[in-house]
């Protein structure tokens, strides 16, 4: 599978001062979440930290994109801090917040973005365990290859697991969001902001425990000078290569 990526935008907790390796598993209690000046105040007030980081990178990625793009959104856990609060309220037989409930579905974030940017294109929202990010890339590729779209806005976000769920963690934790514009490779001259890559995957039973999420490993690799990388989840092995 060959795709061209441009405008990769990454945000993670403490990205102002720390590298991804340094920031992973760090304390996120006193965090400054993105400010989102482009969102009107009356709408901004309802945005959770999860929504803020995802909308920030998405907005950065479409900075000079003129037409409305279909969106592929990927997240392993969605807005889990919000979901777990809703679940706790239900368990305690409390009434649940209509605002939180209304924004708790998996496609809420790309839908908010489509409202904010007046974008009426199709949206896919994907969750596929440890492979969420990479499987969403496969989905984006399928949509491009089948001619459903010429370009796709890809958004991925995952937040550090809430305290209650940390006991189940099977990868390292760092709140992060990644966005990019994806198309099929063409013959045109590459600009500095873009890169074509080839990727493939095979089923594979791995005993990996506590890796970094594939999304973070991907963005580290993408921004490095390294040509090739092999990423592993519990069920798949992914081979990625940059094209010259």
């Amino acid at each position, binding site marked *: 599978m060959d795709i061209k990526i441009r405008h990769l935008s990454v945000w993670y907790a403490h990205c102002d001062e720390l590298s991804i390796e340094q920031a992973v598993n760090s304390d996120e209690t006193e965090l400054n979440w993105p400010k989102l000046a482009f969102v009107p*105040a*009356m709408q*901004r*007030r*309802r945005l959770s930290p999860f929504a803020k980081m995802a909308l920030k990178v998405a907005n950065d990625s479409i900075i000079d994109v003129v037409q409305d793009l279909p969106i592929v959104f990927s997240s392993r856990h969605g807005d889990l801090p919000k979901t777990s609060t809703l679940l706790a309220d239900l368990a305690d037989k409390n*009434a649940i*917040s*209509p*605002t939180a409930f*209304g924004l708790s579905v998996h496609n809420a974030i790309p839908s908010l973005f489509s409202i904010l940017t007046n974008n009426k294109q199709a949206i896919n929202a994907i969750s596929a365990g440890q492979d969420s990010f990479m499987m969403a890339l496969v989905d984006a590729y399928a949509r491009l290859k089948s001619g459903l779209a010429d370009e796709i806005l890809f958004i991925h976000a995952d937040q550090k697991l809430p305290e209650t769920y940390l006991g189940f963690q099977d990868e390292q934790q760092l709140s992060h969001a990644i966005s990019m514009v994806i198309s099929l490779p063409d013959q045109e001259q590459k600009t500095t902001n873009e890169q074509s890559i080839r990727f493939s995957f095979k089923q594979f039973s791995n005993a990996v425990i506590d890796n970094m999420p594939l999304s973070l490993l991907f963005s580290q690799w993408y921004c490095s000078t390294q040509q090739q990388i092999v990423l592993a989840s519990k069920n798949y092995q992914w081979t990625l290569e940059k094209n010259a």
Partner: protein
Amino acid sequence: MGDLKVELKQLIIETLDLEDIEIADIQDDEALFIDGLGLDSIDALELGLAIKKNYDVKIDANSEETKQHFSSINALCEFVSKAKV
């Protein structure tokens, strides 16, 4: 009554995360929804829930009267103080 009005304004600001708005910015007779403060239907649900919780009053979700009760701080104050007893 005066205290309850301040209390309700504080409740609205906190419940609905109105970051840039202070108690003094909300007028007693100003419309809360659409015009005036500019709240919307999700705010109505959220505020209804908060008032139920805080004052233990019952709110009929679909009645014309309820619309009236939520029209301004004055109306809301009257509704809550009557319903509480």
